[in-house]
Every structure is written in structure tokens, then in C-alpha cells.
């Protein structure tokens, strides 16, 4: 294939140039062409990706298991041998317990949330460093579509930006290219929540007269972004009110630890405004039904 004559090389280069020209001259058509070519390839790649994600989890569990055992002194080596077997089993059970708690939280959220959702597992991160995005193990075959909202038990995670048959890319709320309409839970003022380059989020276009406080909770407004009203986005940590500007802005720490995501819910059908998250039975959730229009 690569033992080519100069004529073949010229044809190859010409094909490359034609392909690049197509991308720039006919962007829409070329996008659908690339998507058509890419879908079977993505389907093929989803298998090793899922396998590697499982391997990654295994490696992490083994590593943390090793760290936990590392501090045992040499004097206890004999006892350690006996203990190791028990600890191994204990670790397994603890991991199962944690996984059970996590899944129960996801299930609990699913029951509280009136919107239709689909549980998905995180199998990877964006292939470049320039986007804060995750790869899910659910795709168009499971009903996932572009612009659908994605959340974890603690709050909003991001929105779907690219869908392949078995996988989907989710742009996180901390990415500077993402924007979701937010609502300050206490004052009911609206604004736009965008990601920042530092990996946090910022709420912009908040009315000057809004009486913000550090610690105020921001929730989704339900107007755009594939989320129902009332999904927690984050907590205000700093308020910026520059003189002469028409709006104020606030820095937000996301409610969800986006570095430790394992299971998420894709919101396949958010209900109309007002039919969002219900408070859990045991303790009041971050959003109550008070203040609904």
C-alpha cells in the first residue's frame, strides 16, 4: 500500500487536497459525509473503549487497594497474610457497597425526577485537551440525541453534543463552549451559566438589582438546554459587580464533582417548565416546588 510510485503519491495528495477543499467549501455536506463514514468506525471503536474503561476501573481499584495496604508494617507481615485475604474480600464488599450506594442514588434521582431519563456509564474523556467532555456508553441506538441534558444525582453534568450508534459525547457545564440558562433559587433571577477556562462555571447577565449572596444555589431554569427546571447547577462563591456595567456576574462551583463521574442520567424527555425535580422523601432536596410560576 505504501510502496508507491510518485504518480500514486500525487493522486493521494490530490485526494487529500480535494477532501480538505470539500470540508471548507461544502461544510454541511462534508459534515454529513464524515458522519456517514464515521458511524461504523465509531461503532467498531466503542468495543475496545468499553473494554479499556473496565480495565481502567480495575487498575484504579487495584492501585487504591495497594495504597491502602502499603502502610502495614513488616512486623505484622505474618498477620498480614491472614488479613490480606480478608481485606481483599472486605475491599470487594466495600466496593460493592459503594457501587450499590451510587446506583441507589441514581435510582432515587430517577424516581424523583419526573422527566424521562436513561442511565449511562462514563467510558472515557474527550480525545483532546481542548474540550471538557465525557464519552457515554449509550448512543443513538438507545435513543440519545444531540442537545439532551445529562445529570448526576447531585446536579447537572452537561449536554449531549455528538451522538454515534453506541456512544455519545457530553460537553460538561464547566467547558467554556457550553451555556445553560440558570435560575438563582432564592431570588428567582435568571442568567446564563457558562464554563470557564479554569474548569469552573460563571453565571452571566444577572440583573444589577438582584441581591446575590455567596452560597446561593443556582438551578436550571428549564427554558433551554434539555433540562427540566430545578436541577442544581452549582453554588455561588464570588460575585462580580463592576461599576458602569449593565449586569453582574457570579462565579459558581459546580454541584457535581465532574472529575469523578461514573454513572449519569441522560434526560431523554424533559417535561415543561414547573415539572422538574421533586424533593426526596427523606430530606428536602436542593430544589423545592416553591416559587414555581
Amino acid at each position, binding site marked *: 500500500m*505504501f510502496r508507491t510510485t510518485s504518480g500514486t503519491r500525487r493522486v493521494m495528495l490530490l485526494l*487529500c487536497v480535494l477532501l480538505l477543499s470539500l470540508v471548507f467549501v461544502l461544510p454541511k455536506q462534508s459534515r454529513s459525509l*464524515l458522519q456517514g463514514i464515521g458511524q461504523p*468506525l465509531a461503532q467498531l471503536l466503542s468495543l475496545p473503549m468499553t473494554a479499556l474503561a473496565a480495565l481502567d476501573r480495575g487498575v484504579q481499584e487495584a492501585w487504591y487497594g495497594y495504597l491502602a495496604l502499603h502502610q502495614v508494617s513488616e512486623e505484622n507481615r505474618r498477620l498480614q497474610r491472614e488479613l490480606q485475604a480478608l481485606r481483599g474480600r472486605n475491599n470487594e464488599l466495600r466496593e460493592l457497597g459503594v457501587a450499590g450506594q451510587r446506583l441507589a442514588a441514581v435510582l432515587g434521582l430517577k424516581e424523583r425526577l419526573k422527566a424521562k431519563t436513561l442511565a449511562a456509564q462514563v467510558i472515557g474523556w474527550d480525545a483532546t485537551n481542548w474540550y471538557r467532555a465525557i*464519552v457515554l456508553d449509550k448512543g443513538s441506538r438507545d435513543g440519545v440525541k444531540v442537545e439532551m441534558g445529562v445529570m448526576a444525582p447531585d446536579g447537572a453534568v452537561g449536554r449531549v453534543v455528538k451522538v454515534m450508534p453506541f456512544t455519545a459525547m457530553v460537553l460538561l457545564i464547566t467547558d467554556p463552549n457550553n451555556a445553560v440558562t440558570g435560575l438563582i433559587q432564592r431570588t428567582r433571577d435568571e442568567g446564563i451559566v457558562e464554563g*470557564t477556562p*479554569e474548569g469552573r462555571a460563571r453565571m452571566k447577565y444577572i440583573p444589577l438589582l438582584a441581591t446575590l449572596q455567596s452560597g446561593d444555589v443556582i438551578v436550571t431554569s428549564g427554558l433551554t438546554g434539555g433540562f427540566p427546571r430545578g436541577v442544581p447547577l452549582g453554588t455561588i462563591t464570588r460575585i462580580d459587580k463592576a461599576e458602569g456595567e449593565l449586569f453582574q456576574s457570579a462565579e459558581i462551583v459546580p454541584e457535581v464533582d465532574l472529575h469523578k463521574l461514573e454513572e449519569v442520567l441522560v434526560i431523554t424527555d424533559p417535561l415543561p417548565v414547573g415539572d422538574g425535580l421533586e424533593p426526596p422523601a427523606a430530606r428536602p432536596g436542593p430544589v423545592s416546588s416553591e416559587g414555581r410560576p
Partner: protein
Amino acid sequence: MKPALYAALVLGLVPLQTSLVHYLSFVGVRPDLCLVAAGLIGFLAGPVEGALVGIALGFTQDLFSAGALWLNLITKGSVGLLAGLAGRQVTNATLATLVITMVSLSALENLVFLFVVRGGGDLGDRLSALPSILLPETLLNAALGAALYWLLPVRPSGEQEMGRRPIGMVG
């Protein structure tokens, strides 16, 4: 042999990049395996192979990135092509020339990303990406490229293996 190796790279690198490369991350930035592969192939095997493998790798990478479906396709193809052209200019491919090539190409590609992905942001946001993404990724890519080059069982030396003109470093 070569086509099989390239096919394995195209099918294997992106799953690795999305799931396991975070173990190699430095200040939260991961090396770009596809860029390193396209650069190395271009540098060692010539611009056409570099460009073709770069395009294939970039396209696969685009499928699992939140960006547009052409960005990596074009940049990785260009990296392969430019690495090949750079490789042609040296009589003896050494570790130093490879590192210089990788640093230049990685910085160039990241600058393209900076203007395409963060082009809409204010200047402060764009400048903050230089030390937080561009610099660490460039260093990681160059280090990884150098390590892989050093580990290669057969390294080309001189114009015979490279199949290139014996012209030394020319402008």
C-alpha cells in the same frame, strides 16, 4: 505489515487516548497520542504516509471529541505532512531533531486549536490556555515522541534508510 500496523494504530490509539492516557497526565493535561503517532510516522516514513495516517487518526479522534468533525482531521494530517517534510531536510534523523520537530508541530497544532476553540473568548481566556494547555501538552508530546523514538528497534539513519536527498539541514 505497515498497513496492518497503521490500521492497528488508527483503531487502538483513540480508545487508549480517551480511557487510559490520564495516567500520563501532567497538571491535568494529557499527551496527544495521535499527534505523536502522526508526527513520528511522518518524520520517519515521509510526508505522504504521515499525512494519510494523520488524516485517519485525526478523523477517528474527531469522532470522540466534542469539537467539529474536521478539526483533528486537518491538523493531524498537516502534522504528518509537515513532520515528513521536516524529516526530509535532515541527513541524519536524531533524537534532537525529532524533539525540535515535535515541539514545533505540537505548539503549532495547539495554536490552531486555541484560535478555533477559544477564538470567541476574551484575550485573557485565550492567554490562560498557553500555560494551562499548550505548554504542558507540547512538553508531554515531545517527551513521549522522544521516548518512543528511542525505544524504536530500528531507527533510520542517513539518506539510504530514509530514502531522502542527502542535503543536510537546509533552509
